Every structure is written in structure tokens, then in C-alpha cells.
């Protein structure tokens, strides 16, 4: 019989059949061609015109089949456009569920086509491009199929891509895991949607869906609303929650903390105002409903109550308990929204957990040559960074005489450094700085440098929370004619009024600018930018015009940075201004243009921006512009840190040292705090570059990447620390790289080793203050005092659990990994340590195995113990040292977990190991591994045990007579942090 696989050798027979007059024969031929097209497309391609004419023949009843055959032939010929248009002609015959290459390719093509048409027609709103309804039908069929097949994520992704919010809604609503789907979409919109307006649209749609849920996730809603900038809605939600149960109030607090974390001052302010008006309006109306809930409440004077809500004074005599608690909640939430609560708690945390190593500073100080002022002020700066926000100025007080060597601008910096150390000390800030501030009235003998520095310091203390200090700074600015003081005041004002766009302040600073003094003008330019951050106001034009007028390079530079700041986060909106700046004759303005690109597209990884920057990085004639262009890549890419080393790796090998420097800092900025291995590998060779300033940049960048990483996590950290020490001790090292090494050691141990550089909040929003801080920080190339701006980028790595009174209760949770992995780095020598640190011991593998078996049993027991509600006695009896993490018994193998107590240091890399224990007294409202987390009390009747009540109490001390030395005064001497009560744990 027949051979197993008889195949036709040619399609010519079938093609001939197409010419037959009988329609049945044509049909038969087409059907067969359709199934054989993958074999005979080269032959069929010569007859395509014939098949096309069949398709165009109105009377032929199988036109669609003809179209399908033609489409397939075109697909094999690689003519995807023609193929698609015929596939559309094939109508329902084109099977979207077909699992062939042809179907896959064409579907992808169809989606691309559809998405591009949709986005084009949205951009050019005037001329609507005609959408092929057949294309739309195919895409819809595809989406429907995904939804029915349960591939919701695919469907969501595609509908976002194709700008079909209706389908997105459908996909989400049919999904079984609704909350998961929504958070997936939020991620999606932040990561992949580059068009700002469209992203807003998606978020608006998501909020709509959220609100229809029976049990909405207010945390996510409010995050979306913040992005959309709708303070009223957030205000309403918060208002509603405040009236609800105790749990609702906790949720409201949590939302407020999450909002504060994103550092959007203007937004928070309007939410606060909104809450004010809301409470005065609604409390009257809300009361009846409250009463229906709670019959025990006596109806009493409504008007009086509303007053009470607005001004909760102590004279609440007839007011029922419900109202009181509401008023109390309102004040609390306003406190949170103003940022004061979190700042205060952070301050307490940083103070009590300060682990900075004074010995490092001492080594630096001793190693340096006396007369080298650059290194001298770098050391002071390094100290400030190391103690940022901890209020610990022991080092300064111990080295008064050494400190007094700082003169002129060094003095300015030294005084400003105090602001960094006391950052966030809102209540005491002014008192602390009082000795250095310009004295009104009497002509003070103080030097203008320390006065200016003090004003700048005030700005740093009150950065982004400057309501209280703004007025004072303005007055100081008006009352002085010294350009140094003006310089400090402008920076201070800019910082304190960050992003508020306050007209009066702007006018004040502008007046300084128009005096055309180089020193003051530079600060004025930056100050104006800080004031107008992200407003994209027309003021930028005014600034640009003045930049063209003035002769002073310093002023032009200040202004161009200021202009860049105004377009922060505006993405496409900023394009005209960016174009204008990058086309300018003046390299300094082009340099500002690079910053504008960086800030407008911060953390978007926008392809267009990256392209432009790379173009400037290789083509501009000015080294400054090239350096900045590369550096700016770091800002654009900080949302995808893994990408940066790859993108700049070629540039880091450039012959031009400026480009290498930029590459180093770009990696430092975008990978800050990540400890990313690729980033470290890229920076390592640069730290021993032949050019001194490249070494400087690489050292600083490396410190930024390695911040809060210890040696057991990545062994290169230890190498790097030793390298820093070597550079500092080396007599023949260039000053530039020495300065870099000193600053790097400061950054590496910043904020008492309890802060990291974080440009994105936990909810993936950009942190405005941090980004702005780093942007201005990179100006230290021209002006050392601006180094202090890096303190704005520090955010504490802490888990701080709060109860409904916003107090810190005793609460324990688990870090499910080896304690040494995320421990504090070892102090440099044993003398300075208070806690003994476990040394690594060599363990034979057999021993380790036996041990680990034994340990498992012990662990399970220990867990039981930890989970069991402990009485106080039991907790002190256990022998595990909390929070320090190091076990006393050296030869014991390291345990694989660690119990942390609230408030605890949780470094970013550690977050994924954090587990909350069940059956404890408290339950977190939100399962966040770090940051501020509200705790729900499951046993409200028992008395709570509070921790962290020791505030760094400071009294304004009198100035050390005659000596205008920073740090010598104004600090409480006797306040040493009390380590948390240790308890031990035996296995």
C-alpha cells in the first residue's frame, strides 16, 4: 500500500485549481492551500495576486478564507503589515487561540498596532486617527479570551498598553483576587506607563474600582489619590475613618503615616486644611448617626461640640466621650500629617539607637595635616553626616580647639553641620542655634560666616517642615546686608519652604538675586528652585531671563539648578523648557538642562530621557555638561537600579575623567543603599583611578551604595572600609581623593548607622525631599557647603510600631535570618564598644550538621516560647540579647533568626525576612516590614508597656563665653542614650 507519508511536491495543482471556473473547486483549492501554506508559501507567493483578487471579488462567498491564505503568505514573506491587514480581512477565521507562530506573531503585531494607534490618537487629540474596527475587534477578542481563560494579569497588562480602561475594569472585576489585581495594576502603571496623564487616568479608574468594593483598601486608595493630587478625597476618607471604630482610626493613622512618608508637603497641607473644614462641617451632621449607633450618648448642644472639635481645649464638661475621642483623634492625625509625629519618633529612634563609631573620626582627625582646610572641613562634614539626626555632638564638644581652626566659609559649613546633626529637632531647633544666629537689634560681634551657617542649619533642621521657622528666616534675610548671611538665609528659606511656592518668600529671595552679588545670588537661585520645586511655574522663565543677563557664573549656575528644580517630576510638560536650556549657548545653562532632564524624569526610566542624556554625554563640548549628563542618568534610573550599572558601564571606561566621574555618581545615586553587587563591581576599579577627582566620586558613590551593608553581607564592604582608612592615612594621597574618602566614611556610617539613602518610598512613590537633596548635594563639586544637602536623602531604617495613642508599645517580631547578616558593623576597636561582638568561628562541616539538627529542635521550642505571651519575668529570663543581635556565647553557631523589639532597626535588605509573630498582644494594621506601623491592641484591657519615652531633652544652654564655636554649646551634656533593656535567650 501507500507509503506512510505521501506528500504533494508542489502546490501548483491547487493553484491551477484556483483558476477553475467552478466556485466549489476554488473553495476546495483555497481550503487546501490554507492547510499547506506553511510548506508551499514560496510557490503560492507568486499567485498571491490571484488570491487577492478572489478576496476582492464581492461575489465570492469565501473571501475571508482567501484573506487568511494571503495573510499567511505575507507572514512567511515577512511582510507583517500586509499580513495583518489581510488577517483583519479574514475576520472570525483568524483564530486568536491558535497556538501557532503565525497567530502569535500577528496577535503581537495587532496589539502593537492597536496600542500605537490608541496612544497616537490620544496625543493628537485634534485629528482623530480612524481606528480600524476590525483591529479593535481582534484585540477585544483577545482580551476577552484572556479574561475567560483566567489570565487576568495578561489581560490587565494588555488593556493598560492599549489604553482600554473599560477592559481593564472588566478584567479586574472578574479577577478572583481583587486586591492583588489592583496592586498589580498600580505597580504596572508606575513601572510601565511613561505618559503621566495616562497614568493618572489609570489610577483614577483604579480608585473608582476600589471605592465600589465592600471592604475597600483605603491604604492603596489614598496612595493613588496622592499621586492624583486629590487632597479632598483623601480628607474625606480620613474624616470618615476618624468617625468610625477604633480600628478605623488606627487605619486612618496608618494612612496618614504612609502619606507623610512620601514627603509631599503641599499635598499634606491641603489634606490637613481639608480635614479642618470637614470636621467643622460634618461633626454636626455626623452626630445623629453616631447616636443611632450608640444609644447611650446624650444629645447635647451641637454648636458647642463643633467648637470643641476645632479647638479641643480642656474645658470639655458636657461633651460626651465619643466627641472627645474624635477631637483627640483629629489632633493626632493632624500631628501626623504635619510630619511632626514621625519626625519626633524618628529623632527618638535615631538618638536611642545611635551606633556611630567615634574612633573612625578620631583616626581621621589624627591622620590629617593640620593646615589642610579642605580635609578639615570634610572631617567636620563627615561627622555631621555620621550623626545626622541623632543630636549627638560629642565629637565636636571634645575637639573644640581643633574645631576653631575653621575660618570663613569653613566656619559657615561647620555651623551648618549642626543643622544636620539636629535635623528634625523642630521644637528645639531655634534654641539650639540661638548662639550663632544674627542678633537683632544690637550689633552682634558674631562673624557673618557663623550667622549665615546658622540660618542654613535652621533650614536643614526644618527641611520640608518649615512652617514655624519661615517667618524668622525671612526677617533675618531682610535685616542683613552681608552676602554671606544672605547666602545662608536663602538656602535656609528654600529648605524650610520646600515646594510651597510661597509668593512672599519668592519675592524676598528675588530681591536678593537682583542685587547681583555672586555669593548671595547663587544661593538665591537655588533657594528659588527649592521653593518652587515641581510647580513648573512661569517663574522659571523669569529666572532664565536673569541667567542670561547676569555676568556672574555662580549666579547662572545657581539659577540653572533652580530652574531644573521647578520642573521636578513634570515629565513631558517640562520638555519645552528642557529643550530651551539644552540648546543654549552657555554651557552652564546646558548643565542646568541636564539637571532639568534628571529631575523632570526622575525615577521613570523614560527611554527618551535616557537617550537624550546619553547623547549629551558623548557629544557636548563642555566637560561639565557631559559629566552632569551621565550623572543625571542616576536620577532617571533610580527606580530600576539593576539597569544603571549596565547602561553606564561603557561610560565608566571613557577616556574622559569627567564622564567617568559622572558614571560613578550615577551608579551611586541610583543604586544608593541597595548594596547591589554589579554596582560595587563597576565602582571598584574607579576607586583606584588615575585621576584624583574620579577617585573622589567613586569613593563617595561606593559609600552611597554600601550604606548599611556589613561585611558578612558582602565581603567587599570590609575591603572598602580598609581602603578608606588607607587613603586617609596615606600622606601622599591627593587632597581630592582624601576628601572623598573622608566624606565616604561619613556616608557609610550615616545617621548613627541607622539611616539609608532612599529615593523611593515603600509604596514606590518618589521621595521629593530625598531626590532634591541628592540633586543639590551633587553640586558640592562647585561649593562644599552644599554637601550637607545629602542629609535630606537619609531615611531611617526602622520598624516603629505605634498603638492608638501613637505611643511605642512593647512588641516583638521575627527577623528570619542570621543576625550577623544585617548587624551593625563591628566597631573599629574593642575599647570603644559597649557590647561584645561575636567573632566568626571555624566550624567543621560535620559538627555544623549535627549542630543544626540539634538547633532545629531548639528553635521550634524557642519559637513557641517567643510566641507565647510572655510575662515580664519570662522575658527578662531569656538570654537572647535583643536588637544588638550578638549572642554572648561565642562558640555557639549563629542562630538562624532573631527576635527584634519595637522600635527596631530593619535595613532594606532585611525587610523580606521580617515575620510577625502570631498570638502576640498586638497585630499590625498593615503588614509592612519597616516604617511606621500602627498596631491593633488585642487586649485593650491590660495595661500597656511602653518603650522609647526618652526624648533627647535639650535645654538651651548658655554660650561658651567668647567662643563662637559650633557644637560647644546648646547641647545637653548629660543625655546619653539608654540601651534598651537587654534580655537573654537560651537555646
Amino acid at each position, binding site marked *: 500500500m*501507500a*507509503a506512510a507519508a505521501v506528500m*504533494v511536491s*508542489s502546490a*501548483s495543482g491547487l493553484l*491551477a*485549481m484556483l483558476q477553475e*471556473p467552478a466556485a466549489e*473547486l476554488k473553495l476546495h483549492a483555497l481550503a487546501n492551500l490554507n492547510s499547506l501554506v506553511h510548506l508551499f508559501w514560496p510557490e503560492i507567493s507568486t499567485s498571491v495576486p490571484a488570491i487577492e483578487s478572489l478576496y476582492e471579488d464581492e461575489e465570492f462567498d469565501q473571501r475571508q478564507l482567501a484573506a487568511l491564505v494571503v495573510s499567511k503568505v505575507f507572514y512567511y514573506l515577512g511582510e507583517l503589515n500586509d499580513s495583518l491587514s489581510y488577517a483583519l480581512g479574514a475576520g472570525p477565521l483568524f483564530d486568536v487561540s491558535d497556538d501557532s507562530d503565525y497567530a502569535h506573531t500577528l496577535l503581537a503585531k495587532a496589539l502593537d498596532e492597536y496600542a500605537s494607534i490608541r496612544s497616537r490618537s490620544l496625543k493628537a487629540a485634534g485629528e482623530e486617527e480612524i481606528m480600524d474596527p476590525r483591529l479593535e475587534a481582534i484585540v477585544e477578542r483577545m482580551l476577552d479570551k484572556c479574561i475567560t481563560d483566567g489570565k487576568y494579569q495578561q489581560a490587565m497588562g494588555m488593556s493598560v498598553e492599549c489604553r482600554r480602561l473599560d477592559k481593564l475594569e472588566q478584567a479586574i472585576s472578574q479577577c478572583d483576587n481583587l486586591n492583588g489585581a489592583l496592586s498589580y495594576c498600580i505597580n504596572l502603571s508606575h513601572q510601565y506607563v511613561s505618559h503621566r496623564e495616562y497614568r493618572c487616568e489609570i489610577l483614577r479608574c483604579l480608585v473608582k474600582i476600589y471605592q465600589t468594593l465592600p471592604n475597600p483598601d483605603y491604604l492603596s486608595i489614598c496612595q493613588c489619590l496622592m499621586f492624583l493630587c486629590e487632597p479632598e478625597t483623601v480628607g474625606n476618607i480620613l474624616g470618615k475613618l476618624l468617625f468610625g471604630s477604633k480600628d478605623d482610626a488606627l487605619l486612618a493613622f496608618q494612612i496618614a503615616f504612609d502619606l507623610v512618608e512620601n514627603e509631599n508637603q503641599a499635598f499634606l497641607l491641603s489634606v490637613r486644611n481639608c480635614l479642618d473644614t470637614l470636621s467643622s462641617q460634618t461633626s454636626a451632621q455626623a452626630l445623629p448617626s453616631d447616636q443611632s449607633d450608640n444609644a447611650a450618648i446624650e444629645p447635647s448642644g451641637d454648636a458647642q461640640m463643633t467648637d470643641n472639635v476645632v479647638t479641643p481645649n480642656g474645658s470639655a464638661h458636657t461633651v460626651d466621650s465619643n466627641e472627645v475621642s474624635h477631637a483627640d483623634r483629629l489632633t493626632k492625625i493632624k500631628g501626623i500629617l504635619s510630619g511632626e509625629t514621625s519626625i519626633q519618633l524618628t529623632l527618638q529612634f535615631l538618638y536611642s539607637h545611635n551606633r556611630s563609631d567615634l574612633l573612625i573620626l578620631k583616626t581621621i582627625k589624627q591622620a590629617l595635616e593640620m593646615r589642610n582646610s579642605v580635609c578639615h572641613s570634610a572631617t567636620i562634614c563627615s561627622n555631621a553626616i555620621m550623626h545626622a539626626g541623632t543630636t549627638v555632638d560629642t565629637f565636636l564638644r571634645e575637639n573644640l580647639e581643633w574645631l576653631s581652626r575653621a575660618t570663613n566659609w569653613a566656619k559657615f559649613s561647620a555651623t551648618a553641620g549642626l543643622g544636620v546633626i539636629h535635623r528634625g529637632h523642630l521644637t528645639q531647633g531655634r534654641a539650639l542655634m540661638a548662639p550663632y544666629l544674627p542678633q537683632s537689634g544690637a550689633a552682634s560681634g558674631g562673624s557673618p560666616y557663623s550667622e549665615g551657617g546658622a540660618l542654613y542649619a535652621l533650614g536643614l533642621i526644618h527641611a520640608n517642615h518649615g512652617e514655624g521657622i519661615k517667618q524668622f528666616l525671612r526677617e533675618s534675610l531682610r535685616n542683613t546686608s552681608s552676602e554671606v548671611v544672605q547666602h545662608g538665609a536663602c538656602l535656609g528659606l528654600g529648605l524650610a519652604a520646600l515646594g510651597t511656592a510661597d509668593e512672599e518668600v519668592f519675592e524676598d529671595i528675588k530681591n536678593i538675586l537682583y542685587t547681583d552679588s555672586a555669593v548671595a545670588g547663587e544661593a538665591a537661585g537655588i533657594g528659588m528652585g527649592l521653593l518652587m520645586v515641581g510647580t513648573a511655574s512661569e517663574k522659571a522663565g523669569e529666572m532664565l531671563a536673569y541667567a542670561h543677563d547676569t555676568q556672574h557664573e555662580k549666579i547662572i549656575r545657581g539659577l540653572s539648578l533652580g530652574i531644573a528644580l521647578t520642573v521636578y517630576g513634570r515629565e513631558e510638560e517640562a520638555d519645552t523648557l528642557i529643550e530651551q536650556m539644552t540648546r543654549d549657548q552657555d554651557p552652564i545653562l546646558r548643565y542646568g538642562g541636564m539637571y532639568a532632564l534628571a529631575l523632570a524624569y526622575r525615577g521613570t526610566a523614560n527611554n527618551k530621557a535616557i537617550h537624550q542624556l546619553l547623547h549629551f554625554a558623548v557629544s557636548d563640548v563642555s566637560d561639565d555638561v557631559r559629566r552632569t549628563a551621565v550623572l543625571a542618568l542616576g536620577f532617571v534610573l533610580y527606580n530600576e537600579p539593576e539597569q544603571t550599572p549596565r547602561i553606564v558601564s561603557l561610560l565608566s571606561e571613557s577616556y574622559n575623567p569627567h564622564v567617568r566621574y559622572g558614571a560613578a555618581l550615577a551608579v551611586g545615586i541610583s543604586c544608593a543603599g541597595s548594596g547591589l553587587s554589579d554596582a560595587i563591581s563597576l565602582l571598584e576599579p574607579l576607586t583606584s583611578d588615575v585621576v584624583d577627582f574620579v577617585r573622589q566620586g567613586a569613593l563617595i558613590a561606593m559609600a552611597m551604595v554600601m550604606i548599611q551593608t556589613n561585611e558578612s553581607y558582602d565581603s567587599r564592604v570590609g575591603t572598602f572600609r580598609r581602603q578608606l582608612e588607607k587613603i586617609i592615612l596615606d600622606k601622599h594621597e591627593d587632597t581630592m581623593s582624601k576628601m572623598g574618602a573622608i566624606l565616604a566614611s561619613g556616608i557609610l556610617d550615616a545617621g548613627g548607622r541607622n539611616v539609608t539613602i532612599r529615593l523611593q518610598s515603600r509604596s514606590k512613590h518618589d521621595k521629593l525631599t530625598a531626590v532634591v537633596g541628592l540633586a543639590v548635594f551633587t553640586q558640592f563639586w562647585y561649593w562644599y557647603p552644599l554637601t550637607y544637602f545629602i542629609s535630606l536623602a537619609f531615611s531611617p531604617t526602622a520598624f516603629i510600631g505605634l498603638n492608638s495613642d501613637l505611643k511605642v508599645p512593647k512588641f516583638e517580631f521575627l527577623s528570619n535570618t542570621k543576625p550577623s547578616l544585617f548587624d551593625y558593623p563591628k566597631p573599629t576597636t574593642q575599647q570603644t564598644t559597649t557590647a561584645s561582638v561575636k567573632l566568626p568561628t571555624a566550624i567543621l562541616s560535620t559538627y555544623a550538621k549535627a549542630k543544626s539538627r540539634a538547633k532545629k529542635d531548639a528553635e521550634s521550642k524557642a519559637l513557641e516560647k517567643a510566641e507565647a505571651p510572655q510575662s515580664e519575668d519570662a522575658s527578662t529570663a531569656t538570654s537572647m540579647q535583643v536588637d544588638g543581635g550578638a549572642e554572648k556565647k561565642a562558640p555557639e553557631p549563629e542562630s538562624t533568626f532573631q527576635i527584634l523589639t519595637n522600635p527596631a532597626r530593619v535595613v532594606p535588605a532585611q525587610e523580606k525576612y521580617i515575620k510577625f509573630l502570631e498570638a502576640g498582644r498586638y497585630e499590625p494594621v498593615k503588614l509592612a516590614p519597616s516604617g511606621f506601623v500602627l498596631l491593633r491592641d488585642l487586649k485593650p484591657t491590660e495595661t500597656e508597656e511602653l518603650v522609647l519615652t526618652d526624648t533627647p531633652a535639650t535645654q538651651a544652654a548658655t554660650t561658651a563665653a567668647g567662643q563662637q564655636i559650633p557644637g560647644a554649646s546648646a547641647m545637653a551634656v548629660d543625655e546619653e542614650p539608654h540601651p534598651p533593656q537587654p534580655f537573654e535567650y537560651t537555646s
Partner: protein
Amino acid sequence: MDPKLVEVTQLFSRFKAAFARNDFDTSVGLLSQLKVLLTKFPSLPPSFQQTPNAVEELKIARDIYEHAVVLSVKIEDQDAFERDFCQLKPYYMDTCDIIPQSPEEYPILGLNLLRLLVQNRIAEFHTELELLPVNALENACIKHAVELEQSFMEGAYNRVLSARQAVPHETYVYFMDLLAKTVRDELAGCSEKGYDYMSITEAKQMLMFSSDQELREYITEEHPEWEIKDGCVFFQKAKETQPCKEIPSLQVINQTLSYARELERIV
């Protein structure tokens, strides 16, 4: 036996009867019905499913198409010939393992070669030839076509014309007649290039016309640009070929310069 097969067989016998009667209209009608019926058989190309009746079906289908080819020659329809031949070809090329060779195979292949020669599609002629097995070239029908092509290429037109007397198959006559026309066209083309003018008698002889009248008709029909006067045929030589195209020197220079500039920029 399969009812469909029975139906086809009956219809085919009616077709053959009509064909034998030279009743071409009926034949054509029946043939198209047959073709439609054949599409119902899954065992036929291109699917080649192995049904129990596959051999019979294939045989009868081949037979039908062979008749179709011959019929198209008889009704002198070249397009139909090509169509039918193309559909027949898979039965010759791909089914040799299933059904025995048809006695008609070589005559029909030869016929096809002849057709290609007549239509002056020499490239395809050779392609077809290459596809044939070596021993096929020994076959009289194929050999005939091959020899004709050789003579035709050599320009030995008299041999081509004389070959009409020695056709291996009666169906070849139609194409041989057509071939004479092809030869005449070739001759006319050559004369036009070769001579400025030619006397009518010579032209008549050259182009194998028996009367002046026929020659005149041919000229008006095929070569209206020729002119007859003073007893001679004047071949209006195609107008002097237009001067060769200008070299786009400026464009080339511009391109080269811009390449050089780009190169310089890259480094």
C-alpha cells in the same frame, strides 16, 4: 463499493462516451461536474489520506484529468490545458508508490513540453525537463519535444517545420500547427533586425506564406510598423536607440562626500 466512487465511475463513462462522440460541449459540462465530485475524495492530492478505495480513486482521478488534458487540446484551449495539467501533475510526481504508471504519462508530459515550446516559455521547458527521470528522455514523445527545442534554438526552422510530419501522437498536431506560427514570428523578428527591406516574394517565401494576401494580413496584424511599397517590405528599423543614460555623477559625488563626512564624525 463506495457510492461516491460508483457515481464518479458512471459519470466518467458518460463523459467518455460524449468524448468519443466528439461532443465537446457535453464533455466539458460533465468534466466540471466530475472535478467537483473528485474534491470529495480525501485520498486525492493534496491530502493523500489512506482510504480503502484510495487506489481506485486515485486511478480514476488520474484518468479523468488525463482525459481533461486531451479534451482541452481538442477544444484548443491552452489555459484549460495548463490548469488541467497542473492538477494532473501530482498524480504523476507523487503517487508513483501507490498506483502503477499510466500509459498516457509520457505522451501528456511531452505534450506539455510542446506547449511550453509553443508559448516560447523556454525556461519552464527546461525546468520541466530537469524534473523528468533520465530514462524518460528515451521515450519517443519526450524525445520529440527535446529535439524540436534543439532545432528551434539552433534556428533550424526547417527541421522544426518538417517534424510536423512525424508526430508521435495525434494530439500533437494542434501544437505543431501553433509551433509553425511561433517559428514565423521568430523569423519575422530576425528579418526585421537583419534587413532594411526585402522583396515581397522573398518575404513570402521566408515567412512561409502561399499568397501575397496572407502576407499583407500578417503584416497589418502583427507588424503594423512595416511598410509595403515598390514591391518591397520595408522594416522600419526601430528608431535609433536613445542615447545611453547619463551617469548620475553629481549624485554619486555628493553621496561619497557625505559618507566621508559621517566617517569623520564617528571617530
